[in-house]
């Protein structure tokens, strides 16, 4: 967007946020949203690595039908660690807490988020929760699966469920604090002229995400409290021996955990909207509809949790209602996919790495979304529920969708984060390797699922071996795709070419300030006069 940035009157420019202090203390006690964003980034990379190692061990175990690499107990702990860490300590904080923290204030032309102290506090909560989870893993692990279904988790499991539940509970409050901060920031701290209809789509999607964070997470928190109490006192409200209903736990759990799926995908959609606009030099097609669809997803997403319970013994009528709502929640997602495709039409497309990740996102998210319809269709879900079909489906959404979008976002804002450029071709190749490895890993799992292989199986019948070997082979390629950015981005952080304020020629406010960003983002408060993505039309290049 074109800006009326007052020419800098100060002789010495503000130091960049990276140069404003080099001590450990200057990082650990920082109130700067950009530094906090990087703290999150470091933390989630750490948790991602542990969870990925767990996944690698599982994939190696599944090379053979027998349980020969690890014991059943160990295997059950591995998939629990993988699930818990990936969901609560990587996916949920990935784009919102790491990238969102970094760019939200810059994108709306503010100096910081509304409550900087709360922001730092939520990082510490996140770390406290994460360390407690690590403690429970190192102290013997948890074998309930990330879903903590009662009465197994409350009565029968002899593992460190309590520490894990409390860890997730604490991390949940970090999510709530972050969501609250973003909501207030987006409402109250927008620069003059930054009306809602000029808000970049990334912010619309993060606003919707924050609503879910604030309104869904507390229900998870209270549910985990109830599980913990049940383990402490030996009795609880989900206990069938007292007439309690284990399905009530599932209702409360999925009231959070289904919207949480949208916490894990909406921010990714925001990144894709940004990159599609920048790299095709066009406004996103149907801006208003795309923005509204983010809010629609946030609200409709709360109405569909029952589709996780189609075979649980839930009422048949509730099943039918939840099926209908689940079909409808796919509509706003479909709108986005169509709009992104239409954005390319008559664009000036250049194939930079973030765009490659975004195109990968569109492809994989489409498949993930369409297979979601299979799961909304009741009889098909009855067959494939709790099989590898479901595993493949949600990995297409969460890995194919969110991880690719996160990587795309990291590459897109990397110049703003580091002030430097990465090696473009290496990055493109890494993106393509990730895409290929991902499909090889997870596509066979759709077939496995429809053939009837249940999930969370340590051993499996022999007829499933070929597909499992394929999947493991794909995982090794995927691993390479994940590892490469660590190296070339790490290298670029210190030795990369200087990027300049706006290497992509983008219009967002964050690109109107120096790279790496100055300590307080802007020398003077920017004033916004046009909508987002105001690229010149026609054949002339800027």
């Amino acid at each position: 967007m074109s800006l009326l940035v007052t020419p800098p009157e100060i002789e010495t420019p503000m130091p960049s946020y990276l140069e404003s202090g080099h001590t450990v203390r200057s990082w650990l006690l920082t109130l700067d949203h950009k530094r906090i964003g990087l703290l999150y980034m470091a933390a989630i990379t750490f948790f991602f690595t542990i969870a990925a190692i767990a996944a690698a061990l599982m994939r190696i175990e599944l090379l053979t039908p027998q349980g020969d690499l690890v014991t059943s107990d160990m295997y059950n702990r591995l998939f629990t660690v993988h699930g818990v860490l990936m969901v609560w300590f990587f996916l949920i904080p990935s784009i919102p807490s790491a990238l969102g923290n970094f760019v939200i204030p810059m994108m709306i032309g503010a100096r910081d988020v509304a409550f900087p102290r709360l922001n730092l506090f939520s990082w510490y909560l996140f770390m406290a929760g994460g360390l407690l989870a690590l403690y429970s893993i190192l102290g013997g692990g948890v074998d309930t699966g990330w879903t903590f279904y009662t009465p197994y988790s409350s009565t029968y499991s002899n593992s460190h469920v309590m520490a894990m539940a409390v860890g997730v509970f604490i991390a949940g409050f970090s999510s709530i604090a972050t969501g609250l901060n973003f909501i207030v920031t987006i409402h109250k701290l927008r620069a003059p002229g930054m009306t809602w209809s000029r808000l970049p789509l990334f912010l619309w999607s993060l606003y919707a995400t924050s609503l879910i964070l604030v309104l869904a997470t507390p229900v998870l928190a209270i549910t985990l409290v109830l599980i913990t109490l049940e383990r402490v006192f030996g009795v609880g409200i989900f206990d069938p021996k007292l007439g309690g209903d284990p399905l009530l736990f599932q209702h409360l759990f999925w009231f959070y955990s289904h919207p949480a799926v949208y916490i894990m995908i909406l921010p990714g959609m925001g990144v894709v909207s940004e990159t599609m606009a920048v790299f095709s030099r066009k406004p996103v097609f149907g801006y208003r509809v795309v923005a509204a669809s983010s809010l629609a997803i946030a609200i409709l997403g709360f109405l569909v949790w029952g589709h996780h319970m189609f075979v649980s013994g839930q009422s048949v009528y509730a099943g039918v209602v939840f099926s209908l709502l689940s079909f409808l929640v796919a509509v706003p997602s479909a709108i986005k996919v169509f709009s992104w495709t239409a954005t390319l039409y008559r664009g000036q497309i250049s194939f930079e790495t973030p765009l490659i990740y975004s195109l990968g996102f569109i492809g994989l998210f489409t498949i993930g979304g369409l297979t979601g319809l299979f799961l909304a269709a009741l009889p098909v879900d009855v067959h494939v529920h709790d099989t590898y079909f479901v595993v493949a489906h949600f990995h297409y959404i969460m890995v194919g969708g969110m991880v690719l979008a996160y990587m795309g976002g990291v590459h897109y804002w990397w110049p703003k984060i580091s002030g430097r450029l990465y090696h473009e071709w290496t990055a493109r190749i890494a993106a393509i390797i990730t895409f290929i490895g991902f499909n090889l890993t997870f596509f066979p799992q759709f077939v496995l699922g429809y053939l009837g292989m249940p999930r969370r199986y340590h051993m499996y019948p022999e007829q499933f071996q070929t597909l499992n070997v394929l999947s493991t082979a794909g995982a090794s390629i995927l691993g390479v795709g994940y590892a490469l950015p660590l190296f070339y981005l790490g290298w670029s952080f210190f030795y990369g070419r200087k990027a300049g304020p706006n290497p992509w020629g983008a219009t967002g406010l964050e690109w109107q300030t120096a790279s790496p960003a100055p300590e307080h983002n802007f020398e003077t408060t920017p004033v916004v006069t046009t909508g987002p993505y105001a690229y010149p039309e026609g054949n002339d290049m800027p």
Partner: protein
Amino acid sequence: MNFTRLPFAFFLPERASTIAPRVDGIFLGLLVASAVLVALLIALNLTFLIRYRRGSPAKRGPIKISTWKLETGWISATTFGFLGFFYWSSRVYLDEERPPAGAYEINVTGRQWMWDVRHPNGRREFDTLHVPRGRDVRLLLSSEDVIHSFYLPSFRIKQDVVPGRMLSLWFNASKEGTYPLFCAEYCGTKHSQMTGQVVVLSPEAYATWLGAGTAPEGVLVHGRQLFIKYNCAGCHDQPSQIHAPPLQNLYGAMVPLADKSFVRADEVYLHDSILLPNKQVVAGYAPIMPSYQGVISEGDLLEIIRYLKALAQQPASTSTSSLP
């Protein structure tokens, strides 16, 4: 339709129940629709990406078509498409969930980590389920510990088995053979070994396999012992000091409840009423029966239900109190 004959159908497991082809039909319908949509998207994306790469000579400039029309167009197209699939799949689901009258009932109990099967004549088997072909079979599922899930991929059916409740699952096996049985809900250490098989036999072979089983008299004797052991007789034998409903011809009857509704006294009702008596109180009786939740084992509970069933099938002349 026989899809397995098609060369590309390697991803379809065997179909051994009457519902399986209908489920596969929806699956294939969704698959075709998705494939068309994905192909369309790939074609559009590739065309745009190549044609409008930066610096290409293709014509740019504002789009002529109305954005609004396009948006409404694809929103309504997807919505109606989705609603169509919803209607189709819900129809099949309701048929799948509504148990046919007169189905042949078999009890299945899940416990860590095995399936315990009881046939109507008392024959018991573990991790294997023998069923007759071509007959409506209704499984009555209960759990002794955690949630399990009874999954027969070749029948395309699955039902979670929840402690404290009796749930049911019905099917009609269409093809003789042996098919896999899995526990699909994670249930602890040996979840992946809680597997077995379902053997579909011809009705004659099934009858032979079933053998004589326990004679009805045996059921009555053993059941009566349990009936006394758990103090059921103290209140339910007539006449009694305590005002409790008689159970003589209860099974299969319609029972009037305190809230003025009616419920059929089937196995599910008996099972759940013994565990949680106060949930559905018979009209005219006080809610004084203690809960047997956690007191009675699932096995004994099923034996008592069989006893009550056998009582209802007795000639009317014998009264409860005169039984041995």
